[in-house]
C-alpha cells in the first residue's frame, strides 16, 4: 500500500490550517531551542573569555564584582588591593608572571585598561599588528577596537565620561617621571602602537595601556622611582599603589592551588575565575532547567492542542476516508494515512523550529556579543537535538490518537 499520495492530498485540502499548525509547532520548538542554545553560548563564551585569567588576586570582597570588572571589564567599584600584597605577589617564585590590572578610564565607550606587556601578549597570543607598548604613553588596542595603529587618543576618566583636562601637562610630567599634577582626571594623550589578536573577550574593544599610565593618570605615581622611566616589572616596592586586581599566571596546577590558598587572607582574596563561573552557571543552569521544562511542557500542550485541531480537520474529511474504505482500503491504510498526515506536520514543524530557534539564538548571541564583547556562538548541540527528538517522538506517539479516532469512524454513515 502507498498512503503517501492520499496523506499529501489531505494536507493540501486544508493547506492554510496545515501551515498554521506547522508554524505553531515551529515557534514552540524554536522557543525551546533558542533558550537552550543561547544559554550554552553564553556559558561557553563567558568561560572562554575567562580562560587566560588563571588566578585573580584582589582585595577581600565580592568575587563576582572582581571577575566582572577584570575579565568582562564591567565598570564596577571594587576595593583596592593592599600594595603590600602586590609586593609579595611580585616576589612569588611560583608565578610565571604577575599582571596588575587597573581600570576606570575610557575613550568614548571603549574601556582603557592598564596592565603589563607580558599579560597583553599572554591574552592576545601575539599581536595582529604593530608592537607591544614600550613607553608610558603608548597603547595596544583590542582586535575589535575602531582605533587604528598610529592614532593618538585622549583618555577620559570614568566610563564614557568627558575627556580629561590639561592632558599635555600630565604627559610631560609622566615623561619626566614625576607625579602627575592635579591627580585624578589628568590624562595625557596616548598613541596606539599595536592591535591584539581577537580574544573573544571584552578586551577586544579595550585600549590597553601600561599600568604606569593608569596609575599616573590618577595621581598615584608610576610604581617606579621618580627617575625611573621604564615600564613594567620590576616595580619599586615602595612606590606601588593599590590595585583593583592582579592576574597571576602560576607555573603549574600545584602552584595555582598553593597561591590561591596563600592569598586567601584577611587582607586579600584569590580565586580561579572558573570557580565563580561554576557557581553562576549552577544558578543559570537551574533557571535554564526550569525554563526548558516549562518550554517542553508548553510544546507538549501545543502538540496536544494541534492534534485536537487535526482531529477536527480530518473529521471534515471523514467522507473521503469512508470512500477509501468502500474502495477496499484497510483500516490500517486509513490509520497510516492519518498518522503520516499528523507526523508530517509535527516533524516538519519541529525541524523548522530547530532552524528558527538556531537562527534566533544566533541573532541574540550576536547582539549580546556586540553589547558585552564576549564572543558567543549559538550552536545546535545534543541537548537541542534531544529536545526536538523528544517532541517529535511525543508527536509521533500522540499522532496515533487521531489515527485511531478517524479509522474507527463508521464507513456507511459517512457515505450517506
Amino acid at each position, binding site marked *: *500500500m502507498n498512503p503517501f*499520495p*492520499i496523506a*499529501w492530498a489531505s494536507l*493540501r485540502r486544508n493547506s492554510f490550517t496545515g501551515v498554521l499548525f506547522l508554524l505553531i509547532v515551529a515557534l514552540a520548538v524554536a522557543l525551546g531551542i533558542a533558550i537552550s542554545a543561547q544559554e550554552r553560548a553564553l556559558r561557553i563564551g563567558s568561560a572562554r573569555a575567562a580562560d587566560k585569567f588563571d588566578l585573580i588576586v584582589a582585595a577581600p570582597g565580592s568575587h563576582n564584582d572582581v571577575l566582572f570588572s577584570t575579565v568582562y571589564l564591567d565598570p564596577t567599584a571594587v576595593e583596592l588591593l593592599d600594595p603590600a600584597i602586590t609586593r609579595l605577589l611580585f616576589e612569588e617564585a611560583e608565578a610565571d608572571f604577575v599582571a596588575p590590572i587597573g581600570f576606570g578610564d575610557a575613550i568614548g565607550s571603549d574601556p582603557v585598561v592598564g596592565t603589563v606587556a607580558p599579560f597583553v601578549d599572554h591574552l592576545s597570543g601575539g599581536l595582529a599588528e604593530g608592537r607591544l607598548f614600550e613607553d608610558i604613553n603608548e597603547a595596544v588596542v583590542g582586535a575589535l577596537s575602531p582605533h587604528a595603529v598610529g592614532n593618538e587618543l585622549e583618555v577620559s576618566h570614568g566610563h564614557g565620561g568627558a575627556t580629561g583636562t590639561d592632558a599635555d601637562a600630565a604627559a610631560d610630567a609622566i615623561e619626566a617621571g614625576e607625579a602627575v599634577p592635579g591627580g585624578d582626571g589628568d590624562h595625557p594623550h596616548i598613541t596606539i602602537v599595536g592591535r591584539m589578536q581577537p580574544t573573544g573577550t571584552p578586551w577586544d574593544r579595550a585600549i590597553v595601556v601600561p599600568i604606569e599610565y593608569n596609575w599616573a593618570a590618577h595621581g598615584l605615581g608610576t610604581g617606579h622611582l621618580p627617575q625611573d622611566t621604564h615600564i613594567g616589572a620590576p616595580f619599586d616596592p615602595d612606590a606601588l599603589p593599590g590595585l583593583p586586581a592582579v592576574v597571576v599566571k602560576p607555573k603549574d596546577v600545584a602552584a595555582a592551588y598553593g597561591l590561591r590558598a596563600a592569598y586567601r587572607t584577611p587582607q586579600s582574596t584569590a580565586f580561579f575565575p572558573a570557580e565563580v563561573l561554576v557557581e553562576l552557571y549552577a544558578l543559570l543552569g537551574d533557571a535554564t532547567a526550569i525554563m526548558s521544562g516549562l518550554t517542553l511542557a508548553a510544546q507538549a500542550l501545543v502538540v496536544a492542542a494541534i492534534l485536537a485541531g487535526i482531529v477536527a480537520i480530518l473529521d471534515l474529511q471523514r467522507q473521503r476516508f469512508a470512500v*477509501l474504505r468502500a*474502495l477496499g*482500503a*484497510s*483500516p490500517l491504510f486509513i490509520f497510516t494515512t492519518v498518522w503520516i498526515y499528523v507526523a508530517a506536520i509535527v516533524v516538519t514543524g519541529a525541524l523548522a523550529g530547530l532552524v528558527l530557534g538556531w537562527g534566533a539564538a544566533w541573532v541574540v548571541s550576536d547582539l549580546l556579543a556586540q553589547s558585552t564583547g564576549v564572543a558567543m556562538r549559538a550552536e545546535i548541540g545534543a541537548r537541542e537535538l534531544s529536545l526536538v527528538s523528544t517532541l517529535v517522538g511525543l508527536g509521533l506517539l500522540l499522532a496515533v490518537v487521531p489515527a485511531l479516532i478517524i479509522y474507527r469512524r463508521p464507513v456507511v454513515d459517512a457515505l450517506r
Partner: protein
Amino acid sequence: MPGLPLAVSGLRLAFAGADVIDLPSLAIAPGTMTVLSGASGSGKSTLLYLLSGLLRPDAGSIAWAGTDIALLGESRRDRWRRKEAGFIFQNFHLIEEMSPLDNVLVPIWLDSFSANAKRRRALDLLRQLDVPAERDSVAKLSRGQQQRVAIARALSGNPSIIFADEPTASLDAAAGETVAAILQRLAREDGRTVVVATHDPALKVLADQSLLLDHGKREPAP
C-alpha cells in the same frame, strides 16, 4: 474480466429493533445490470452496502461466486472489495487535490506502493471515457467528466462487480444518459456484474433486472 454471480438468501438487517432489509432471496447473473430502486428510505443504498460487504447482515448469506462475504471478517471483506469490486457514488467522491489520473490510481495505491505498472491502463480508461487526464485537479472538470473519472477509478483494479449508488442523480440529463450507457456497456460488453441503486428511470430501462424495494422488502414490479 467476467462478472461474478450473486446468490442472496434469507438476508436480514435490523436497526433499533426494526427490519431495514428483509430479502428472502436474490440472484444476479454475471454480465448483467441490476437496478435497485424505490423511494427514499426504501433501503436500496443499504442493500447495496450489504451486497458490497460494507455492512454485515444480521442474518442470511451473500454469496458472490460461492464466497459468502457475510461470513468474512472485516479485513477479508476489505481485501475482497479491493480485488473484486469497484464503487461509483452519486457525488463522485473524488479527491479534488489530485489529477484525474491520480484519482484513477487511488485503488491501486490501496494495495501496492507503486502504481507505475497500472498507469498505462489508467490513461487508457480515461481516454476511453473521454476525460482529459492532464488536468492538475479533477475540480476543474465538468460534473459529467468527474463522474466518468469516478467510473475509471472503479474500473482501475479491473473488478468483476461494479456497485453504483445513484450514479446519475447529480448529473444533467445528457451526462446521466452517458453514464447509464457506460454502465450498461460494462455489463453487456465487458461481462461485469453491475448493481445500481437509483431513482433514475433511464437506468431502469437499461437494466437486465430491476428490484423495487419498499421499507427493505422486495415489492412486485409494477
